[in-house]
């Protein structure tokens, strides 16, 4: 089996170790004999390239980088909308998650238009309000082949995201802030697209979620049920316990 993982803007949108998500997806495929290739989609990429992808990933970035990317994305909104609406699986972290929404309002009230693909918006309440920073645990609203444990990561964002009616939260916060620190939601799900604030990066310590994305991509591509081989997760379990213990949560 083959899987093409499209990495959107690897040069620009990879500030918080997010390339760990790509490494995790690719290695978990390789370890199972699935030929996973990573296709870099940098500024100026062609529509034909993104259409080859079976799974998309995009990470967060600094403001300058985000501005350059948002210029480039303006021309890509149609194809992205088409692919995401057709159920192409994807994971979008932090800045990328915010991009998919309707708009981002900066601390100085400047409104930056989003791609409008996910029914959500983000506002930065200003410098007087602290950034939402720290370890986080949330309860995801999906089921994986090997069950689905609580999701663990690290969040660091100034923007507060609010979900509209046409998206579901990825999950509900047990400890931490999540989308906005108010309504206990974290992330968003629309068809097979996942948005989340979790760094860490999210996939290495939450292998069931990584496998969920791989399975969804393969099943969609080959149009049949796929059974993934189990991979030992002892190290992951111990790393998860360390974070949970620090937050006084029993896993």
């Amino acid at each position, binding site marked *: 089996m083959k899987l093409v993982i499209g990495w959107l803007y*690897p*040069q620009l949108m990879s500030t918080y170790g997010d390339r*760990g998500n790509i490494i995790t997806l690719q290695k978990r495929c390789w370890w199972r004999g699935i030929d996973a290739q990573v296709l870099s989609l940098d500024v100026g990429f062609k529509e034909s390239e993104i259409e080859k992808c079976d799974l998309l990933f995009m990470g967060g970035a*600094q403001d*300058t980088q985000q501005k*350059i990317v948002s210029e480039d994305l303006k021309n890509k909104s149609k194809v992205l909308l088409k692919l995401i609406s057709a159920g192409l699986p994807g994971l979008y972290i932090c800045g990328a998650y915010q991009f998919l929404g309707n708009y981002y309002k900066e601390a100085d009230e400047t409104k930056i238009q989003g791609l409008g693909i996910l029914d959500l918006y983000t506002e930065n309440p200003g410098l007087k309000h602290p950034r939402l920073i720290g370890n986080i645990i949330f309860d995801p609203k999906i089921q994986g082949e090997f069950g689905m444990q609580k999701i663990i990561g690290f969040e660091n964002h100034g923007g507060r995201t609010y979900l509209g009616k046409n998206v579901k939260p990825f999950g509900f916060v047990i400890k931490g802030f999540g989308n906005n620190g108010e309504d206990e939601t974290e992330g968003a799900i629309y068809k097979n697209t996942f948005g989340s604030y979790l760094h860490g990066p999210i996939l*290495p310590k939450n292998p069931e979620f990584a496998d969920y994305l791989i399975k969804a991509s393969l099943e969609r591509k080959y149009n049949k049920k796929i059974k993934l081989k189990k991979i030992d997760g002892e*190290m992951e379990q111990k790393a998860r316990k360390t974070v949970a213990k620090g937050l006084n949560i029993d896993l």
Partner: protein
Amino acid sequence: MNLILIYLGKILSKLINLLSLGSGATWPGHIALNLNPNFIKENIRNSKAKIILVAGTNGKTTTSSLIQSILLENGKTVFRNTSGANLLNGIASSIVLNSNVLGKLDHDYAIFEVDENTLPLTLKEFTPDYLVLLNLFRDQLDRYGEINTISLKWKNAISSLPKSTKLVLNANDPQIAFLGVERNSLYFGLNEKGAKSIPSSADSVFCPNCNSALNFSDVYFSHIGKFKCSKCSYKTPQLNISEAPYYPVTGSYNKFNILAAVLVSQDLGFSEQEIKNGLVNFKPAFGRQEEILKNGKKVKIFLSKNPTSLNESLRTIRNAKTLLLVLNDRIPDGRDVSWIWDVDFENLLKSYKVIISGDRAYDLGIRLKYADFNKVRVIESLSNAVRFALRETKEKETLHILPTYSAMLEVRKILTGRKIQ
């Protein structure tokens, strides 16, 4: 008033040391600043010491130590803030501890290292004679924010400095070199062959002047190299220095620290021989390629606190046989350990015996599992890990330890039985 604060601080510091309470390097200054917010300003104004201020993500302590070594070797009197105590309270503490019985600072030189957020605050307190800026890399994003934000804050703070302050800048870091445009600045940098392309974890790949992509012709590490903007005329500035008379510490990142120290010393009027004497007699700072002898075996500690510093440590210790990596996530380390995924373990980690420890040892374990290092030994207790690693190190071999900041302090304590003050 300040005299009382100085006496109070000195007594407090003695008590803290006596009772082994720790933080003796910041409390006296913390209290002095609380009782007199102008404590730093007033004391520095009354001192004739020339002031050298050092900032940057990596290399502050080594560069400050190098300058200090050159000054001391040539008969000058110098005082510094303690490494790690690089906020305003650390500067105030160093003033408390180094003032004489009359409450005066009678040293020839003061060297202060400050962290990224503290630099603008420090420049409001006093005007340094030299401002040495080393580099900006992603580091503790949870605490410092993104490097574009920091460089903007620095630019604003520097713009109000008088001409009498000499900027000493890294010509090979695009963000740092740009701070010297429109000012008379001194530049240090390398003039040698480097790699042809920048690694994926590089931070400053866009022109600070016009935001277009930068083209790099020689890359020394991360985004440090010879660059030229693809659109405007911004490029690596003319170097004032590219070679030092002696290199007391290894690694290409240390070449920059050494060049910065030599450039400041040259500008202060020291001769090549005087500078060389200072470099030859230089002893590395705590945990920065520091060597400790334990049970007849040599231990070398390389503080490794962000992707660039860990990459460069790994590059420098290529011939190592036994390696202990320690990852903590306390406040001085940064609570977010995501950065380990930006480290190029895949290409830099050789066939060492690898032992892992620290608060987040298992996160590092996962990272190495994904870099296909399966024979990694994870030992949660740091003292057990150090003991095990020493046993694994053969006679005449060196045990290399790469810890984050708080882990480095712990490792030293385990090896020497003492805390750093």
